[in-house]
């Protein structure tokens, strides 16, 4: 009996021309499309880079060590995703549940970092001592130099000057790019948790592993996109010469 359309469980691939499962092929096509999606967002970011008329800029707000930690967590979540899939195909449903839960938790950790970071940026404070040599101040800090007028060298300038999508072009392009990445991670977490619940209903087994395989493909893709964003936006944004 030949089944029309996708077969009910999505696992039988022998009926397709290429031997590849329909849904797996769909996933790859979707990821190709998503590449163009993020490519356009990153392209917009790069075109707009250096065109902001007011601060704060990347150097003022980014905290590379903090973001490095969340980046590390996200990369590790890719590893636990691999382990979840491996455990499932080995037949260890328990191992699968442990690893997929930890993947989701690491995803949520990354998202918490992102929320924290967005909050920090939005409440960014300009803070420097008037004794600081002007060459050590960022371009944004220099715009507050007149606050030192008539003050002695030990005076500290403290100004609340947050970064939001409305503040400047940097804020606009940064928040929308990283926000859409965050939305992808959020969707991934929901997907992973759905699979976890589904496994308790018998929907995920050693043989019915395609759903997990597809979620894993998506999850790894979202991680790879973050590597690009971390490099292009964060590292290139802070270290001179890029």
């Amino acid at each position, binding site marked *: 009996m030949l089944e029309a359309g*996708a077969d009910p469980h999505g696992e039988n691939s022998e009926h397709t021309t290429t031997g590849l499962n329909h849904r797996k092929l769909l996933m790859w096509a*979707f990821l190709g499309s998503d590449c163009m999606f993020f490519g356009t967002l990153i392209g*917009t970011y790069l075109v707009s880079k250096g065109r902001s008329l007011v601060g704060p800029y990347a150097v003022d707000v980014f905290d590379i060590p903090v973001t490095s930690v969340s980046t590390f967590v996200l990369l590790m979540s890719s590893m636990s995703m691999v382990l979840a899939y491996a455990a499932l195909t080995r037949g260890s449903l328990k191992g699968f549940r442990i690893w997929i839960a930890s993947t989701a938790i690491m995803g949520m950790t990354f998202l918490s970092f992102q929320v924290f970071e967005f909050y920090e940026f939005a409440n960014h404070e300009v803070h420097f001592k008037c004794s600081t040599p002007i060459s050590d101040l960022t371009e944004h800090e220099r715009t507050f130099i007149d606050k030192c007028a008539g003050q002695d060298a030990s005076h500290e300038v403290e100004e609340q000057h947050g970064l939001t999508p409305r503040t400047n072009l940097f804020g606009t392009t940064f928040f929308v790019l990283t926000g859409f990445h965050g939305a992808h991670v959020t969707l991934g977490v929901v997907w992973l948790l759905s699979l976890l619940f589904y496994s308790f209903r018998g929907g995920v087994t050693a043989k019915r592993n395609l759903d997990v395989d597809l979620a894993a493909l998506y999850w790894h893709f979202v991680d790879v996109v973050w590597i690009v964003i971390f490099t292009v936006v964060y590292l290139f944004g802070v270290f001179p010469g890029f």
Partner: protein
Amino acid sequence: MISLTIPIPKRPTHPTGIWNWLTTIDHKRIGILYGVTAFILFLTGGIEALYMRAQLATPEAEIVSPEVFNQLFTMHGTTMIFLAIMPMGTAFFNYIIPLQIGARDVAFPRLNAFSYWTFLAGAIMLKSSWFLGGAPNAGWFGYAPITGVPYNPGHGIDFWILSLQILGIASLAAAFNFVVTIINMRAPGMSLMRMPLFTWMTFVTSLLLILAFPVITVALIELMFDRFYGANFFVPAAGASPLLWQHLFWIFGHPEVYILILPAMGIISEIIPTFSKKPLFGYPVVVLSGVVIAFMGWMVWSHHMFTVGLGPVANSVFALTTMAIAVPTGVKIFSWMGTMWRGSIHFSTAMLFSVGFVALFIIGGLSGVMHSSAASDAQQQDTYFIVAHLHYVLFGGSIMALLAAVYYWFPKITGRLMSESIGKINFWLTFIAMNLTFFPMHFTGLDGMPRRIYTYGTEMGWDLWNAVASMGAFLLAASILVFMHNVVRSYRKGEISGSDPWDGRTLEWSISSPPPEYNFAEIPVVETRDPFWAQKRDSVATARVGGGSGEGEHDIHMPQPSYWPLVVSIGLLIGGYGLIYNVAVAVVGGAIALIAVYAWSFEPVNEPEEH
């Protein structure tokens, strides 16, 4: 343990009447839905054009105000591109592709239904803007910053953004579906280089869609952030590049041009061999040309921007890549002519429209090569010369091919032939009216008449040709009425066609007309290009196509209908209106869509059989 027993309404099993159409996931029914809806929308776009032509028929007319005129040309362009030509192409993808590759349905039947309903949601959203405070008015390309809130405070642009986003979702879902279907569901033996040309061009078009639509999606998201949340993507006062939108739009927009024309070229490449009784001349080269056109379509976008001052280097490079695209296009034209050469040509209506396509497309192609030269384009940019060019390739090209496709495949879809005598009147009327409408625009354009002006003074000397063009436009409307008459008449009492009225070449002609729900009782085995033709000509049967006892009808399990695709689309529609009027409504719409997506995911393709 958590039990996820949600009270899900009973699945529609064998619905009848309206529920049948609302829940269908049969690719043939969805194809018909697409075709009928797109044709109705084509008529609305045509009415918008007629208003403009009435206004421009005489100098200093006052039929519509300048404000309404801006809305008319914006809606006409957006409608014809996104709501008429693209979905009419999708109608034929849906109906014909599974038949041509010997499959029983598409790879994702429910996703296919979702594409249609989402397309309808986007169409309703865009068209409703006429009644909700004014349609969008910034052209189909919606150049920022003129689409920004300071210059465009009404809701028109919001409707434009959100409806295009919804239409984008629909187009992407359909494109994913067809890529997977064509790669993965070909009948045994149908290698890539044995695929019919229409299938090939659908495949290439779908790949273009998958890669081009995310670009406009992001551009529209950015514009949405600017308009709704005060972001700065396209605000030059905040330092934004005033050219960013143009680049993003045309990086999408130029591949989009090929999304509109490649399916037409596929249709022509089916019809001309059939009515010339010869295989397509240079099949591998025609396939390759289509692929090369799609690939090079990514390298020419800045030819839409020759006059913005990108500099001589950029202009020269884009002029050269644009001229180079004429090569694969020319190859195709010579292949069609080579196919007809010494063939025993039967000038059916479908063939007349196809030959008409070749002739008109050459004219549009030649004016295209004229403005591929940046220096020459500086004289033509934003004049009626461009309007003439784009209508020769989109009306003379895409629409003529789609009309040819209707005449060609109507017997397969309905089991009845369309009237050839009315068809010939239809063709000649369309052909003459089309030239009467659009050829004079070359003259007014070179004479300096700008696009998008709502009127002109008689001292400009454009009166005569504008009057001729307007006359042509109304004649064109008459030819569409003749077409509609022919469709309705033939559907009711056309001559019974039988399964293979044209002595066809491809698999769709090997099964009955209209095809049974499961298409092929036995999946055919393909051993050559043009398999059905080969089987009819060769008594040794190089292809085993059609017929065959095989499994009985009751043994073939077709995927069952579903409510969920429709519900997700309704959720998206509510969400779209919500984003414009009330965020709470948008959240409700999003929630409906999300719940329906979950219900859809947990619904098996087929319910277990009841015994």
